[in-house]
């Protein structure tokens, strides 16, 4: 149907691969159209009790069947209104523990589906999102009746989307998750096999699902498999395969090298008095804003993010340090914080629009704006360690949110001195007056507070206009 006939709706650029249905947006709400071709499987999902079991257990996003106009009525069977996700994240933005939880959820879904005569027909990491503090499957059209005797159709996809990145993160380098920015459809198994250390060939799970799998892929590339009736895969064998994958994923562990988790708890450069005062000020300033969403940039382990999420503000806690994000996520899980989403984001190179027509993954900016941005102990890292002029910083923050809670760290601070220790100080504008002057074209300063027992200052600003 020509788009002029439905000016208020648009189909999502990421939703086109599966003919079972697609996502579209209307009046700010996300809907899912189920196509006629998926009718039988949709009815089976409901009739088998699997939908009820998974949604009650928080494993699958719940939806309502609505009578709204379908986006493409010619092929439509139903229109669903799923529970809305606050923020869509991508696998290269997840820390190791988030990735592992997402992989284990996918296998749990497969096990529960198999028990009711269904399976998941795709194992894309994009189908998993973090919702109210835990991973959840967002694609209600992922299930279908198990075709009798068939091998699992999504086995390779699971290995490329989950197992290969996790194995590389655990056995080689945690930063290798960033390969998924290039390989959005999963890390090719031959590449994973080449990058993994030789010792992983002694690990039965990785030897089978990565190394042998890569060799089989290479050996049979482009060849059609031949049929022989009588040779098929039983339901028990599928359960066994899922169980083996689960054991392999469970065994993958990561911890920052040379450090212990406990070392990440320490707040740097603050006396207890300064830290307590900063916490009090942040809480007071947040109360003034009355915002619903906040992006905490440079959140570290999320100490200050929790001041926002604790007030029911949906808080994205972004940091470029995989260990800090991991620790933040583990704490979020432990405390069952439903409003906090820790993510791995490098502000000097924020996630870009990726995939087909640059529309499958949205850039960070496209996923905004938030109501407020918080940038505590961050400015010196961007302005001095990364040479970003203060005016550019102000402009960038102003695109992300209306409110800004920001901390200025002067040159006299020991952390800034550390950054300048091995380089020439070319930052003549980096001082309090220069900071205020750089932010003035974009923001009004509503509050300015010195932090006790430190040389740092906290500002509350609101975007001009």
């Amino acid at each position: 149907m020509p788009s002029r006939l439905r000016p208020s709706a648009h189909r999502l650029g990421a939703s086109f691969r599966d003919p079972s249905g697609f996502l579209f947006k209307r009046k700010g709400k996300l809907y899912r159209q189920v196509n006629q071709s998926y009718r039988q499987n949709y009815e089976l999902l409901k009739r088998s009790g699997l939908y009820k079991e998974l949604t009650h257990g928080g494993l699958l996003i719940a939806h309502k069947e609505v009578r709204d106009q379908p986006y493409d009525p010619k092929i439509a069977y139903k229109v669903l209104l799923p529970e809305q996700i606050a923020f869509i994240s991508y696998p290269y933005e997840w820390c190791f523990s988030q990735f592992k939880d997402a992989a284990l959820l996918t296998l749990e879904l497969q096990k529960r589906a198999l028990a009711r005569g269904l399976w998941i027909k795709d194992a894309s990491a994009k189908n998993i999102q973090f919702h109210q503090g835990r991973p959840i499957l967002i694609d209600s059209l992922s299930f279908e009746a198990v075709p009798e005797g068939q091998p699992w159709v999504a086995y390779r996809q699971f290995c490329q989307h989950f197992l290969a990145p996790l194995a590389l993160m655990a056995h080689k380098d945690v930063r290798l998750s960033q390969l998924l920015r290039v390989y959005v459809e999963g890390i090719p198994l031959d590449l994973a096999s080449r990058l993994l250390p030789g010792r992983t060939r002694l690990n039965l799970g990785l030897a089978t699902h990565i190394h042998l799998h890569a060799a089989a892929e290479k050996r049979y590339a482009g060849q059609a498999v031949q049929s022989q009736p009588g040779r098929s895969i039983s339901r028990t064998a599928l359960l066994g395969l899922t169980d083996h994958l689960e054991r392999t994923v469970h065994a993958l562990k990561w911890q920052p090298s040379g450090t212990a988790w406990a070392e990440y708890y320490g707040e740097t450069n603050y006396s207890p008095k300064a830290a307590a005062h900063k916490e009090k000020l942040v809480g007071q300033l947040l109360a003034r804003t009355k915002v619903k969403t906040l992006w905490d940039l440079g959140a570290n382990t999320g100490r200050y993010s929790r001041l926002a999420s604790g007030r029911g503000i949906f808080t994205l806690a972004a940091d470029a340090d995989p260990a800090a994000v991991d620790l933040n996520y583990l704490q979020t899980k432990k405390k069952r914080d439903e409003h906090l989403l820790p993510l791995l984001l490098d502000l000097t190179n924020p996630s870009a629009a990726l995939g087909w027509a640059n529309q499958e993954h949205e850039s960070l900016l496209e996923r905004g704006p938030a109501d407020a941005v918080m940038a505590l102990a961050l400015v010196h890292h961007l302005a001095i360690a990364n040479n970003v002029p203060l005016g550019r910083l102000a402009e960038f923050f102003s695109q992300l949110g209306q409110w800004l809670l920001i901390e200025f760290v002067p040159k006299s601070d020991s952390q800034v001195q550390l950054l300048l220790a091995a380089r020439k100080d070319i930052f003549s504008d980096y001082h309090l007056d220069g900071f205020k002057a750089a932010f003035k074209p974009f923001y009004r300063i509503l509050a300015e507070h010195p932090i006790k027992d430190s040389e740092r200052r906290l500002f509350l600003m609101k975007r001009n206009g």
Partner: protein
Amino acid sequence: MKSNIFPAGLLMAGLFVMPHAGGSLYLDPGSGSFILQMIIAGAAGFLFIMRNQVARLLGFTRRRDKEKKIKKTRSRNAK
């Protein structure tokens, strides 16, 4: 260059796979992936059953020991 990692005998066993039938199959499952699954799924299924049996036996033994303990405690209390 062909990989030597994949044992030829196993490959022969895996060659006879049912073709894709049923299911939506909008994904390309990959011929190599299908063949590998045919080879390993049987063993994985067997291990799965064995593990479940062992777990069931252990559970039974633990339950029996627990019941014995409870009975002993009850009879002691009765005295």
